[in-house]
């Protein structure tokens, strides 16, 4: 059953299939199979023939699932566009390729600029759904929030309670002194 995907750009009437994904709170999302397959977890379920009637994801809520699928749709469209540009003899298309890469990079940057709780939810969802690009993006973002900070600053950023005993803390500080020199 051919239908234009929600991302729009990739559809050229060649009969692209869509599948339905169902969030833990019972919201259904229809996406291109190619986009959904960016999740290895979903891809395996499709390959195992479990996609009829929709794929339920009991671990992912609608809000986060929407974001993940947005990421996948955008990236799958970009991959399709760049392979078109690659095989196209149109010089303008080929010249536009690095620009499109930049577009994707700025999309990613804006995409991952979210509240901390959403960031963690995205990270966990990307891990569970095995969407490598999104997992790397989220992990890098968290890592950037840690880099260059003292332990105290890290605690403030992430709202973490220092639960070391004074002796433990002393010992651990000493062991890691080299990092503060």
């Amino acid at each position, binding site marked *: 059953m051919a239908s234009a995907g929600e991302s729009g750009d990739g559809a050229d009437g060649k009969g692209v299939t869509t599948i339905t994904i169902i969030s833990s709170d019972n919201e259904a999302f229809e996406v291109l199979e190619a986009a959904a397959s960016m999740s290895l977890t979903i891809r395996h379920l499709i390959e195992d023939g479990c996609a009829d009637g929709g794929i339920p994801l009991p671990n992912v809520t609608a809000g986060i699932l929407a974001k993940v699928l947005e990421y996948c749709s955008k990236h799958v469209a970009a991959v399709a566009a760049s392979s078109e540009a690659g095989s196209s003899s149109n010089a303008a298309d080929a010249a536009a390729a690095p620009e499109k890469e930049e577009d994707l990079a700025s999309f990613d940057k804006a995409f991952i600029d979210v*509240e*901390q709780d959403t960031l963690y939810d995205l990270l*966990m969802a990307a891990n569970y759904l095995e969407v490598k690009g999104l997992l790397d993006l989220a*992990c890098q973002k968290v890592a950037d929030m*840690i880099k260059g900070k003292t332990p105290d600053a890290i605690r403030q950023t992430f709202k*973490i309670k*220092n639960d070391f005993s004074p002796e433990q803390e002393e010992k651990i500080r000493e*062991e890691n002194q*080299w990092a503060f020199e």
Partner: protein
Amino acid sequence: MREGEATAMPAAPSPPPWVALPLVAPFLDAASLAAASCVSTSWHAAFAADYLWARLCRSHYPAALGLLRQLPDSDGAASDRQCSSSPHRLLFALFRSASSRSRALPSPRLALADVAFAVDIFTAGGKNILSFAVSADEAGDVKNADGLFLFGVDLSDRNAVIGSGDWRVMWTAVRTAHRGIAPAAVLMMDAKVPAARAAGAIRFGGRGDAGVAARLPAPGCGGARLEAEVVVELTGEEKLVEKVSQLKRGSHLRETFLAKALSILSENNIRMLWPTPSGVKISALLTKLKVC
């Protein structure tokens, strides 16, 4: 916008789920990893995990891995399981702090058994050509008149990549733990050696040499100065046309180097020679100069 995306004032964020921490760990550099492990007990469990530091040792200080046996692992006093140290983390910390030259060289009365040398050589691109660690007391009984000691290191099956540009040679002396004294390390040399002439000579069978010198801090009394020098020498042997990678498996690539514990030395030289079947010699010359 879908439900779940906050539109009103968000509540204060909660800490990251602990399962996310190991996923983030590979994206951190060593210093950030260390800082992160000081944050809380659960962060310590995630970021002080030995496998993370083993990986960092492998990329930064591969030779150090040869010293694992000789260094203490967890501190006996740490009955608190969650705070006991990991051996690779200690190793990394030791080698990272070795380059802080403010550390004084080991005091005079040092036994050879207490000293080990760790040598790492990288190409300009960061690829590890060779790494080894050897305890200073593995000397054979070859002592020449100068009072030099000879060490044999069997590194069979080694494919040494020559590369181009400069080699980076790191030579660290480690006082391994003995009788309750904590290990200490000093970076004797972190220098660049131009490999181009070496590579050219290997390909075309000529002669070449390149050298670099690095200075060590004075050991203390006497006003003496120590100099370390790395020299790459090639001989014009027929074997040179043979590419290093074609060495037969199982053939012994005998790297031999002469070294002597710094602190015992007062009037002698330290020389480290490293001949290979392909004729590439790497020698480190450590001489003491008298300063008036």
